[in-house]
């Protein structure tokens, strides 16, 4: 189960909207296309349905903490499809409080470049290992703190710096124009440089 990686083209955006309890209220077409779940499967269900079982709790808690604080944040996650594949994404999470209708959480997910994926794969494996080997979440939390301390950065800043700045990352997260060229590349094997080239190309097109 969850041994095969699903390729995700870099111009695909998975969009979903959740309520404050993490219940799925809306998903876009790419979301059902990629995950293999239908709208019937997903609407009204907990968002955990596409969460890989080995996602570290300390990472998920950090995500929820940011949501409760109403902060925009980036989130790296390992997800699963209905037929047992996995795929990594970088997500941009925003929460909004609507009068009368309560809090809504908006998540936009895109392909996570291969080189970043490798780092996070290793980190999450370590965190999950600590959490499940009797160490528990507190110890994993401390490890994560030390991990960023050693690198002199934090989660969000690190992601942003990998993309060469907030502007590039924002452009990437919001780019949606299909680009035929992309489909010639193995979508599980694109590095950050390939992505950045793409982002620049798109920018040009947009202005043109």
């Amino acid at each position, binding site marked *: 189960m969850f041994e095969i990686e699903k390729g995700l083209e870099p111009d695909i955006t998975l969009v979903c909207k959740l309520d404050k309890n993490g219940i799925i209220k809306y998903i876009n077409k790419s979301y059902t296309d990629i995950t293999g779940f239908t709208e019937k499967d997903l609407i009204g269900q907990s968002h955990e349905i596409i969460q890989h079982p080995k996602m570290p709790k300390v990472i998920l808690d950090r995500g929820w903490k940011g949501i409760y604080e109403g902060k925009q944040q980036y989130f790296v996650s390992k997800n699963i499809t209905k037929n047992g594949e996995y795929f990594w994404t970088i997500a941009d999470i925003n929460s909004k409080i609507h009068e009368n209708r309560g809090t809504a959480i908006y998540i936009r997910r895109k392909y996570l470049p291969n080189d970043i994926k490798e780092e996070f794969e290793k980190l999450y494996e370590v965190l999950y290992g*600590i959490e499940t*080997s*009797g160490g528990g979440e507190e110890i994993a939390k*401390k490890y994560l703190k030390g991990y960023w301390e050693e690198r002199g950065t934090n989660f969000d800043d690190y992601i942003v710096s990998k993309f060469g700045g907030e502007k590039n990352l924002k452009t990437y997260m919001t780019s949606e124009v299909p680009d035929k060229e992309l489909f010639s590349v193995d979508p599980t094997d694109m590095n950050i440089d390939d992505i950045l080239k793409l982002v620049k190309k798109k920018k040009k097109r947009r202005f043109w």
Partner: protein
Amino acid sequence: MKRVIRPIPKENEIQLNPYKTIMSKTNQKGIIEYANDYFMEISGYKEWELMGQPHNILRHPDMPKIVFKILWDHLNMAKPIYAIVKNLAKDGSYYWVIADFKTKIDNEGHITHYARRKAIPENVKQKINNIYKNILEIEKTAGLEASEAYLNGLLEDAGLTYEQFILNIMGLNAEQLHDYMSSEISDNSLISGGSAEDAIKKTTKKKGLFGKLFK
């Protein structure tokens, strides 16, 4: 919480890459909170085996207890300190390091000890090994107080403080040792192999210091 069983020592030395740094972080009681990749590579443990464990599972039985007493006396007073240590890897092998400790106290009063460790030259290993052997023998027959008195006598005789003793044995001055401990050369051509002597020369040279280091 599971316990890690302390390995049985064997006569096999793990050589450190002198351009790499073993880093770790413990709480006030020496419980490991973080250790870097090179720590894992050298000690042979996995993160989930080490995190939350006392740091002394890496303690080699050849080490005199007095060294750790001095170390903790400093750490408990939040004083920085160096120590030359023979460590025990998971498979029972050993590795020598010079360790540099710093203590931080945050706004809430939490105490954290940071440690970085680097390789030491072969001649330093031999010298310190002989000294530790003598101290350990005294400690085994007459106890910790006796080994403390002996070490104090040794320092007095040489007219050195503990820190000067470390510098002396490393053959470096305070600035040079600090530079070596903080050096991180990212040039891969340098990282392939090389002795600790070379590493010290290169790092100090890089900083523009000319040492008559290891004559």
